[in-house]
């Protein structure tokens, strides 16, 4: 059976979600191609303008747009941006970003949950960017989220999986795809997230600011695929922190 990422019934073979916010436009296409990405996030605030060059013109057909609500400071604003996105023909997918912290851009889970409740009822495929909190993740699921998108570390920080243990809890406990979003700086970190059982990885800055953008997109693709394969294969009997004792400790039970 083919291994697929399924979001509210929509199926994808790629598990790499590419951000589009920080590129020079002409490089987006090459990045998408090399990444093998099928979903591209898009800041509606960037697409809604009447720019000389509109980012939408640079995204190839057949790619699923994932508009985000960046710029929203609360649930109301996120809902308004999502509705605007649908009116503009950007589809039903929406990544909720409700952020009222301009320094670290950490998501406000409370506002994110409120927006998710509203938008899921309106038929959106809601993909909430969130701080990895188990209780909120459960509430998001109950509210109708299509997945949850916990952050690995602050946006743009390239610090990787600072929240690794908490993401693992979400992967173990939440019966929804867990997509690691934000802070992934290297392909190896993306691979690590996938090995943990993440359903997909989203990255932007790491690729957009790389020396060779298409090449880095390809590196991420391979890393994500490797991580997924390794997760599916199941790890071998790897012992961390020392060798196995040669004499069994429970042998005395049989003495």
């Amino acid at each position, binding site marked *: 059976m083919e291994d697929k990422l399924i979001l509210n019934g929509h199926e994808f073979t790629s598990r790499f979600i590419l951000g589009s*916010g*920080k*590129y*020079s*436009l002409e490089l987006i296409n090459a990045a998408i191609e090399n990444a093998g990405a099928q979903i591209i996030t898009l*800041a*509606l*605030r*960037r697409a*809604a*303008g*009447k*720019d*000389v060059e509109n980012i939408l013109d640079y995204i190839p057909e057949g790619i699923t747009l994932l508009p985000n609500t960046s*710029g*929203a*400071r609360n649930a109301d*604003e996120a809902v*308004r*941006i999502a509705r*605007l996105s649908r009116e503009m023909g950007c589809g039903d997918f929406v990544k909720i970003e409700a*952020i*009222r*912290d*301009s*320094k*670290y*851009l950490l998501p406000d889970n409370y506002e994110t949950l409120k927006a998710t409740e509203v938008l899921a009822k309106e038929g959106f495929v809601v993909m909430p960017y969130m701080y990895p909190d188990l209780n909120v993740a459960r509430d998001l699921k109950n509210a109708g989220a299509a997945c949850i998108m916990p952050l690995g570390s602050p946006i*743009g*920080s*390239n610090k990787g999986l600072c929240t690794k243990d908490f993401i693992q809890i979400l992967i173990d406990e939440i019966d929804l795809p867990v997509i690691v979003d934000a802070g992934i700086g290297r392909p190896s970190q993306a691979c690590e997230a996938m090995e943990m059982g993440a359903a997909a990885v989203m990255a*932007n*800055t790491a690729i*957009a*600011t790389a020396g060779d953008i298409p090449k880095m997109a390809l590196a991420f693709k391979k890393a994500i695929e490797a991580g997924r394969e390794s997760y599916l294969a199941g790890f071998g009997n790897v012992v961390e922190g020392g060798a196995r004792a040669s004499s069994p400790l429970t042998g005395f039970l049989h003495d």
Partner: protein
Amino acid sequence: MERTDHMKYMEGMEVIESDLLERVISAMNNYDYNKYTEKDVTAALSRDVLSPDDFAALLSPAALPHLEEMAQRAKIETRKHFGNSIAMFTPLYIANYCENYCIYCGFNCHNKIRRAKLNEDEIEKEMQSIAKTGLQEILILTGESKKMSDVNYIANACKIAKKYFNVVGVEVYPMNSDEYRILHESGADFVTVFQETYNSDKYETLHLEGHKRIFPYRFYAQERAIMGGMRGVGFAALLGLDDFRKDAFATGMHAYLLQKKYPHAEIAFSCPRLRPIINNDKINPKDVHEPQLLQVICAYRIFMPFASITISTRECERFRNNIINIAATKISAGVDVGIGGHTGEQKGDEQFEISDPRNVSQVYEAIKKQGLQPVMSDYIYV
């Protein structure tokens, strides 16, 4: 001429509950930049997140020999937070009447220049002309005369601007929070106020008449703007008016403490240096040469990596082309600092001399040439 108490609010000026002024001034007064050594600078550059003391080290003379390292770090931070995007905008001066007597400013009320104020039709025509260039962001400016350019006049200009532009900012006289709310509801979301200098004694000698003389009212403008619903606020000291290191430090601390108090506020810095004005071509930025200016801009970037930094046409093409590759994230183009110049005949004189006359498409191409992406709008009014 009798000089009034510049620390005493005038009638009608809103007083807000805040201690930012005391905290910023106290930090600035305690800032002894000569005490910092090379070791402090390298330690500051080695940290992920800088403290105010690290910021102080980066603004010190000891940091100047480390300008290349600062620029390298600044570039990394800029790309991490902004990617390749460089925002473009243009300022539109709609009036140059002014009630203030600021001795270094071309608009000052005693300077004999042609005064003018655009009417609604003229504003609309100017904006149409600017919109044709492809720009999506406009900054509306006036001289500081509440009598000649009252809040409703500016609010109307914002409403007209909203028809043609995605992003509307204002750089006008400081006002009360309810007045900022009127502008916000008319479409403006960003407010820039230059404190000029944070040295209150020096400020007093430079701003001799008018409401601008009131130092604390000006200082609290950004906070009142946030209280009035504005999304973002801009800060600047006019470098060269006083000790630029202390002024840059105070500017950074002002922004830093305001963002701590209002975490949602979007922060922007401008980095103007003094320029010659009509009837006084001797005004210059004194000891703030390009290396010092670069040092200040890099220090802002490394201290507050998420802040927008605007580079003005006060600087030349060469400096502007290079600084967007290091730390600046917003650049003006097609600039006319007089009144009515976008549609042909200028009715009122300029505020200062500009050094980069390039039009929008020239700046656009210059940005692309560096592998960066010009962005006309990265904003949605909600």
